[in-house]
């Protein structure tokens, strides 16, 4: 065994030996020297759009490692599944309407959406803060507000896709099941309004919490905490005051958490059915307060994010 390979091996080295050296120079890389760039520079607006696109793709793990695609894609699949099932049921049973309203869908999926925000908001902003990449952005044409706007809108659009796609599935399914074009279109339109307000509100809260907790793990926990603990606390309080007979207090309490805020908003303004105890719809005064609080939270998140980046600069 040891005798046989030896002639073969020596033969092969003898064969490759003379061949190999002449090939090496040909394989060298030519240094063509430094080339100046004289092309166009597209400036601030383009840079901001690039950041928006990059952040939006990042929110679904696109353009990043396969590992970081897993979570957003799994969550997206899970949030989509109930809408497909609902459509299947509606088509199979010749139902008169879909099992759930469009506007109620984000509320049914609330824990799942909370999980998605908690996973993706830190990914979007905490990384730049933690690895101190922000000075590289601010030493480029964009301003600090541009950075915040790009990140905020990217997160909002990512959430809108996350919440709106199941609604689209329901709408297409509803039309296929011949549930009435006018009814479905109206419901879908209201659903989209709900999805938009819901997305902007939750994106703002999520990004703000993520931006003040640069450690990603803390950020995830903090966002889940901020989105769920007040929601459960508020719901419990609502049932307590409802049992004690003060119906008006139920809707006022609803202002205290993002989830109940959206519930009251959609039942008051978007024709939705509510999960509030006794299906109480906020009064007109309370309704205006719902709008004001939503606007205040969105504006507040934006302003606080800007303040956060004033400090995080170079």
């Amino acid at each position, binding site marked *: 065994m040891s005798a046989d390979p030896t002639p073969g091996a020596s033969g092969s080295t003898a064969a490759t030996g003379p061949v190999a050296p002449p090939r090496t120079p040909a394989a060298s890389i030519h240094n063509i*020297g*430094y*080339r*100046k*760039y004289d*092309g*166009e*520079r*597209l*400036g*601030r607006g*383009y*840079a901001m759009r*690039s*950041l928006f696109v*990059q952040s939006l793709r990042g929110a679904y793990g696109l*353009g*990043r*490692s396969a590992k*970081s695609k897993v979570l957003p894609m799994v969550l997206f699949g899970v949030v989509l599944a109930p809408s497909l099932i609902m459509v299947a049921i509606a088509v199979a049973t010749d139902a008169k309407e879909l099992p759930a309203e469009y506007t109620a869908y984000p509320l049914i999926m609330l824990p799942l959406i909370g999980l998605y925000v908690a996973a993706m908001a830190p990914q979007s902003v905490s*990384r*730049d803060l933690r*690895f*101190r*990449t922000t*000075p*590289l*952005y*601010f*030493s*480029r*044409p*964009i*301003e600090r507000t541009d950075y915040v706007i790009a990140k905020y809108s990217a997160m909002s659009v990512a959430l809108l896709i996350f919440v709106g796609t199941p609604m689209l599935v329901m709408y297409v399914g509803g039309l296929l099941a011949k549930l009435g074009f006018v009814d479905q279109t109206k419901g879908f339109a209201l659903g989209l309004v709900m999805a938009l307000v819901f997305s902007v509100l939750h994106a703002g809260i999520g990004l703000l919490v993520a931006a003040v907790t640069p450690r990603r793990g803390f950020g995830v926990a903090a966002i889940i905490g901020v989105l769920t603990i007040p929601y459960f606390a508020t719901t419990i309080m609502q049932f307590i005051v409802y049992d004690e007979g003060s119906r008006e207090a139920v809707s006022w309490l609803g202002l205290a958490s993002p989830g109940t805020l959206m519930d009251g908003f959609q039942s008051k303004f978007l024709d939705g059915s509510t999960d509030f105890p006794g299906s109480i719809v906020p009064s007109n005064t309370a309704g205006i307060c719902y709008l004001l609080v939503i606007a205040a939270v969105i504006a507040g998140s934006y302003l606080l994010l800007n303040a956060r980046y004033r400090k995080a*600069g*170079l």
Partner: protein
Amino acid sequence: MTVIATESLSKRYPRVTALDRLNLGIAPGVTGLVGANGAGKSTLIKILLGLAPATEGSASVLGMDVRVDGARIRERVGYMPEHDCLPPDVSATEFVVHMARMSGLPPTAARERTADTLRHVGLYEERYRPIGGYSTGMKQRVKLAQALVHDPDLVFLDEPTNGLDPVGRDDMLGLIRRVHTDFGISVLVTSHLLGELERTCDHVVIIDGGKLLRSSSTADFTQATATLAVEVTDYAETPATAGSNETPANAEQPANAEHTANAEHTANAEAHEHTANSEQPARLDGAAALREALTAAGLRVAAPGSGEQTLPGAGHLVMVDAADESTYDIVRDTVVELGLGLVRMEQRRHRIAEVFQDDPQSATDPAATDSATTDPATTDPAATEPTAGPTAAGRLTESGGRDDTEGGGSHVR
């Protein structure tokens, strides 16, 4: 043409004054900005990038006013921060492409420029791997690449050699030099290491406490005369002394290893210190003997205790002015005649720090006198402030040797 111009530029925070009426005019080329930590280097860069408003005074970069044209300046300027700023989970290519687009380059151009720039800074196959696995030197290259990818007219490099080993440091300094010579990009490089800038920069600006201390061309006083550093042993090597001192020398080696170029050298130096200090204190001082002999041979020799000879382990150095080629022969022959061991003989340039040395030394040190006399002529009008005297010398003394292991190890304190 000036790349950066400031006029009476001040920046005051509630508690501290970061910049105090700074007047600068920086021409194209490689300019070093030297100052201790907190001297105002970072504040100056921040203002020049248009990110922080100046309290008073004005500044312009590439002919644009920093107050109104911040975004346009940042389009034509690159910035490499001092600290780590790279996300570990993306590859260098992805990251630099993104940064190129953030500078306004269209997608195709961003990709082409990224490939070019990464190759120019010396990153090849590894550029497709996540940055998290890179060495410090490779990370510094990525940081430099992102500052150059949009082909700026000027780059600010904030402490680019921080955290690098001596070889990496030399590579980086060479790269910075090329950024100007090959790429045609002006460079403003900050450092608290005076020694490394003299090799890299055309011009050095020294600020301290937000004030301009000095602004001079490096060529004028570092290349005027060549100096020869000669290190000798106290005695001709005999096997007996070398053998007897081997063990203690090795034991002491780790503590002093950083001062020496190689292990053999360390053993020698330690052996002689040992011999001179404890065992036979009455023996002849080799360096002093050589100094006398060389002076007698007509060479100009620096007085002991001047310049870097105050450094630990530098007592055996003799600094000789190398007039021409024959100096080398004279030194060699003299060393042989005296029966000393020649540890090394290397060429030196004058160092920027010499400019800041006190008068008593320059009186006895011909080299320092030379640079002191040429000095007023080469400084900028703005820099001829009387503050550059004793305070500068006190702050800007060098604490490190100029051995290869130390790189530009001279700290501004």
